[in-house]
Every structure is written in structure tokens, then in C-alpha cells.
């Protein structure tokens, strides 16, 4: 959504110019909000109206503005943003503007510049020469960079609910509790993913180790095989458990395929050691050490794997980025173009991803802990669904649905 503010002055009531302008805004598929209106008291007095006009695209808005100008609408010039320079590397100037994850525009030199990428809890650095603006974190800023301060000249455009198509993200936007039915939602989600795939959307999964531990790894493999996963975000332990499951049939010593079997606690360390010895996941697949499982399916189906580390990690497994700042950078870059993200059974990783997501990404969070779902979902208030459930039945049902012959291509 983009918007401009217009002003109308004159005998806009008697001449019916005000209703004409409002009608034109609506008939062009745009919306308006009247900010201020003053009606002349005497017959010869002029009236005044300030109206915020918003349209889907800047092209549509420009075309509408051209029409409205013919009827006397004056487009209000916004003030430029205020800038201050970063005093030292890694430090923003005082009163720096803190971003939301919504689409944000800054006005500079009379132009509106979109802040790319839109990123939560960042500052905005402006490049005068390139006429570009980007959201920056502390580590991104160097002494002398021009940073936006105050609130002047900034326009934030919240994500609008779709008016052209109805999908589950439009209607639900809520959390489905443990005791509520989920099958219909999972089927709808399957449809949504199918549409996303047809529309060349990018689907990512943020996978927690509970996927393997609950025995849902095979369902995730089916999703990957059906082409519903473009990118996989995971940590060291997910890979360790998946490899352990593949090599030893256990995950953290438990066999998810057998009832009440325990044992082999050291298996996950042996699994890590095997991958380290092989030289990483790709090498392990190449050497036929890994012949099934989620990581194997990812390699086989060209899924982009993004692995980041944590304090408690063993290993690490080669390919896991352990430098936190570096990991943040990589994740931001890899999250930028996603249309759909499923946060599956991982609290910390889900929260990290949710805080970096663009507001346009449609998000599903599945966790057995209601507070984990709630915290992840609050970052995406308009386009997210939370399901409080064990991840295994969720993935099983979703994989069953998208694997149905009619959905296969």
C-alpha cells in the first residue's frame, strides 16, 4: 500500500468537488481517510479538506493523483527525514529511528525511498548518492554513516489484508489451541502451499530437533520430495539427530519407530563424529554414508540448507555457522525473499526467524508449547497462524495432503 495526502480548497461542497473526488478514489480501487475538514460558514466562504489516499501500487496512486489534480487536489509535500552521522563504528547517533518490520519509506530530496530490507529493531542508513535506504544493525554501521533520527519524513505502511483472494491467512490470523480441531486448517494450508508453489513462491521450513524425535522426519522428507521446501533453516542438533536417526535408528538415544525403547545415548555424538569425519553433510551423501533422512533429502532435492549454531552444540557439524553475527547476516539474507515460512517445533530458532521476517511472509508456527507459539506469532500479527500441537501429526497430515495424487504435478 502506498499513500499520498491531498488537500482540497474552495467551494468544494457547493460544487460537489469533494464527493466527486471521494467517488473517484473509490472507483479507482483506492481508499481514503479524511484527516481534516472545515466547512465554510457563510455562502461565500471556502471549505477545506485534507485527505489521505492510499492505493495498492505507486503506479495506481500516481495515475489517480493525476486525475485528482484535474479536480483541484493539491498533493502535500512531506518533509524530508532528519539525518545524523554515526559517531563511531557500531554505534548509532542518539535519537536514531528504530524500525518496525513493516514496509517503510523515507522522504529525502522530495523523493520517497523504500527502506530495503524491512527489518525489525534496526536503524535506517541513507545513501545520498545511490538514493537508497537500508535497515542496519549495530554491526552494520560505520563511523560517518548517515542515520535517520527522529520521526519526521518516515512513512510506515502496514501490510493490508488481501482484498483480491481469500486464503487462510486472511481469515485466521490466530492461534489454534491444543483442544481445537486442526485438520481443516492443515488442508487449507496444503492448498495455500500448492498455490505458492505454482506462483513460484519460496517456502522455508525452520526445523527443530523434535521433528526427528517425534518420528516426523519421514513426513518432512515427503514434503521435500513433493517439492514443498525451498530452504531449510536448522541448528546443529537437528542435523545431529537426523543423522543419528539415519545411522542408528535413534535420536538422542530414543528410537522413534519403536514403542518405549531407550538406549544408545552416545549415538548422537557418534553421528556427529561420522559427519565430521566425512567432511560434512554433502560429503557424507556423496560417500553414501547418509542414504536417507531429512538432510539426505535436502541434498538430493537441492533444498538450500542454512545451519546456525548455539552454545550447547556438540561438534559443530561442518557447515554450521557458529559466529552469531555472521549467522544473523546469513539468516537475514536467506529470509528476505520468502513467501511462506513454517516454524516447526523449535522455540529459539523460531523466535530468531520471526524477528527477522518481512511482514509480507506468511507464517505458520507449530509447537506443543502455547507460549512458544504466541511469542513467535506476535511478530507477524496479520499473516500468521499458530497451531498448538505435537509436530508429528501436523507434518503427517500435511504430507499426506500434498502427496495426494491430485496435488502432484
Amino acid at each position: 500500500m502506498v499513500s499520498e495526502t491531498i488537500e482540497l480548497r474552495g467551494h468544494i461542497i457547493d460544487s460537489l468537488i469533494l464527493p466527486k473526488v471521494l467517488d473517484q478514489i473509490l472507483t479507482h480501487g483506492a481508499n481514503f481517510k479524511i484527516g481534516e475538514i472545515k466547512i465554510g460558514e457563510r455562502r461565500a466562504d471556502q471549505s477545506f479538506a485534507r485527505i489521505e489516499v492510499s492505493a495498492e501500487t505507486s503506479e495506481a496512486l500516481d495515475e489517480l493523483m493525476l486525475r485528482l489534480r484535474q479536480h483541484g487536489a493539491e498533493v502535500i509535500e512531506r518533509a524530508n527525514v532528519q539525518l545524523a552521522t554515526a559517531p563511531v563504528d557500531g554505534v548509532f547517533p542518539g535519537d536514531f529511528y528504530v524500525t518496525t518490520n513493516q514496509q517503510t519509506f523515507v522522504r529525502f530530496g522530495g523523493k520517497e525511498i523504500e527502506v530495503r530490507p524491512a527489518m525489525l529493531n534496526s536503524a535506517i542508513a541513507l545513501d545520498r548518492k545511490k538514493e537508497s535506504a537500508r535497515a542496519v544493525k549495530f554491526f552494520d554501521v560505520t563511523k560517518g554513516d548517515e542515520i535517520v533520527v527522529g520521526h519526521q519524513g518516515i512513512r510506515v505502511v502496514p501490510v493490508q489484508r488481501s482484498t483480491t483472494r481469500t486464503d487462510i491467512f486472511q481469515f485466521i490470523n490466530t492461534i489454534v489451541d491444543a483442544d481445537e480441531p486442526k485438520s481443516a486448517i492443515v488442508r487449507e494450508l496444503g492448498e495455500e502451499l500448492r498455490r505458492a508453489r505454482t506462483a513460484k513462491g519460496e517456502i522455508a521450513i525452520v526445523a527443530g530437533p523434535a521433528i526427528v524425535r517425534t518420528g516426523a522426519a519421514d513426513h518432512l522428507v515427503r514434503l521435500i520430495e513433493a517439492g514443498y521446501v525451498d530452504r531449510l533453516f536448522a541448528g546443529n542438533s537437528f542435523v545431529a539427530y537426523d543423522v543419528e536417526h539415519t545411522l542408528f535408528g535413534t535420536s538422542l538415544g530414543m528410537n522413534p519407530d519403536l514403542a518405549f525403547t531407550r538406549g544408545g545415548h552416545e549415538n548422537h555424538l557418534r553421528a556427529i563424529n561420522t559427519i565430521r569425519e566425512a567432511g560434512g553433510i554433502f560429503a557424507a551423501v556423496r560417500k553414501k554414508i547418509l542414504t536417507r533422512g531429512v538432510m539426505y533429502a535436502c541434498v538430493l532435492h537441492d533444498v538450500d540448507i542454512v545451519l546456525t549454531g548455539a552454545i550447547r552444540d556438540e561438534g559443530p557439524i561442518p557447515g554450521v555457522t557458529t559466529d552469531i553475527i555472521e549467522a544473523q547476516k546469513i539468516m537475514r539474507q536467506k529470509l528476505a525473499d520468502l513467501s511462506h515460512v513454517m516454524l516447526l517445533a523449535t522455540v529459539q530458532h523460531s523466535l530468531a526467524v520471526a524477528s527477522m521476517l518481512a511482514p509480507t511472509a506468511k507464517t505458520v508456527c507449530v509447537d506443543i508449547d502455547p507460549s512458544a507459539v504466541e511469542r513467535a506469532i506476535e511478530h507477524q500479527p496479520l499473516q500468521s497462524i499458530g497451531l498448538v500441537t505435537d509436530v508429528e501429526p501436523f507434518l503427517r497430515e500435511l504430507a499426506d495432503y500434498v502427496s495426494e495424487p491430485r496435488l502432484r504435478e
Partner: protein
Amino acid sequence: MRELLLCPPDYYGIEYEINPWMNRARGAEAALAQKQWKQLHARLSNLDCEVHLISPQPGLPDMVFTANAGLTVGRKFIPSNFRHKERAGEQPFFAKWMEQRRYEVNWLPENLYFEGEGDALFGGDALFCGYKFRSDIQSHRALSDILGCLVISVELVDPRFYHLDTCFCPLPDGMAFWFPSAFDDYGQRAIREHVSGLIDVSPEEATHFSCNAVVIERDIVLPEGAPRLVATLQESGYRCHELPMSEFIKAGGACKCLTLFMPQRESV
């Protein structure tokens, strides 16, 4: 006694095309144009009007249409800012002429197009102003600022009726005759709300420029070719004087376009 400004058609001709009526291949006959203009001049003079003449200028064929010189209210003269460069040269001659007669010249901002009485006609206490083809609506607010009166802005939508005075003619009793299809829906509604009685002119008679009439109290000077309108006006107690205007209609003008009131209103 009403004072009027006319301009002899010595340099009149179809030398360019800036409205759908103009066609350089179908030029005006100079002698016939002179004859028709003289008939108009004589008729207006006979209606107890004082007719002033401005010297025509070579290279400005449309200067004959003095209604587009500007708008005169009391001793104030607001010169036009012509949209087309072909006519822009007329402005200094009219402004100078008015200045010499001690009119207070009120200039509009240069970036606002306004084509004078052609797009600004008083009806009751309101100044009706046409916009889009020639005048900008922004000029209407400037007029209201200068004159302190209610301005009803109406959008013109038929390019054949590109000035307000080609499709709307207010009468002294608060009524008016008009060609409704020349306006958009909002313009039609605005006019209906502010004019007590409206006489619709048929499309056929409107194309004879019937609305382009000079009204002097109960006398109406209009182009010939509108028998139904004339009958209606006569029933309402007006005397109609029909004149041949063929050579000026070729340029998209007739009786009213050839006449500027000095002033159109004594006060607002």
C-alpha cells in the same frame, strides 16, 4: 446602460485548430464574417448598449472572441491565462486596453489557466465556472479569493463545448438555459441545485451554439438555428434576436464569444 467590448474581425480566420470545430481546410469567408459581425454589433448597439472596440491585431485571429479576454467585475479586470500558445498573445493587448480605462488589473498566477468570461458566468449570486478543457479548477479558487463570491466549479466533458459559455447561459431572473450533456454528473447536479429554473437545449440546437447568447435584460441575442429554444424563451417573456453566425461557429464561437461585458457584474 450595459457596456460591451467587441473586436472587429479584420484578422479573423481559421489559422490553427485548437477545438473540434476548427478545420483549416474549411476556412471562414472573410466578407461574410465581417457582415455577420457587423450585424451583431448593430444589434447590440440597438439594445441600448455602449459598445467599445479594441483594435484587432495581425497574427491573433481569435482576438475577435473578446469574451476570453478576462473577467470584469465592478472596476476589477482579471485577465485570462490562455491554455493555447496560439491565443496567449492576446493577453497583453486586452490587459493594456483595460488599464488605459482605469480598470484595476488583478493577475492570476501564471501557472493557472483561465479563459475569462468564456468560462465564468454569474447566475444569481454565484459565479459558475467551467473547467478542464481550457480553464483549471485551481483558477476558480483564485477568482473567489479576488472577488469574495461563491464559485460553482463545473467540469466540462464534451470537447465540442469546451467553454462554459458554449453550453450554459444564465438569465437575469435566476433561470438559465443549458445543454446538460456538456457537463459531468456532479456538474449537472451542482447547476441544478443552484439555478432555480433550467431550460434544456436539445443536442441538435446546442450544436448551433444556441447557448452562446448575449442576454441584455429581456433581450437575448443568439445564433439562428434554435426555433424550439426561441419559442420557449419567448413564452418566458424574452425577446429573441437570431443572427447568422456560420463563419464564427467554424472557429467554435458565436454571439457570446464575440462579446465581453464591462463589467459582467457591478458588484458581488
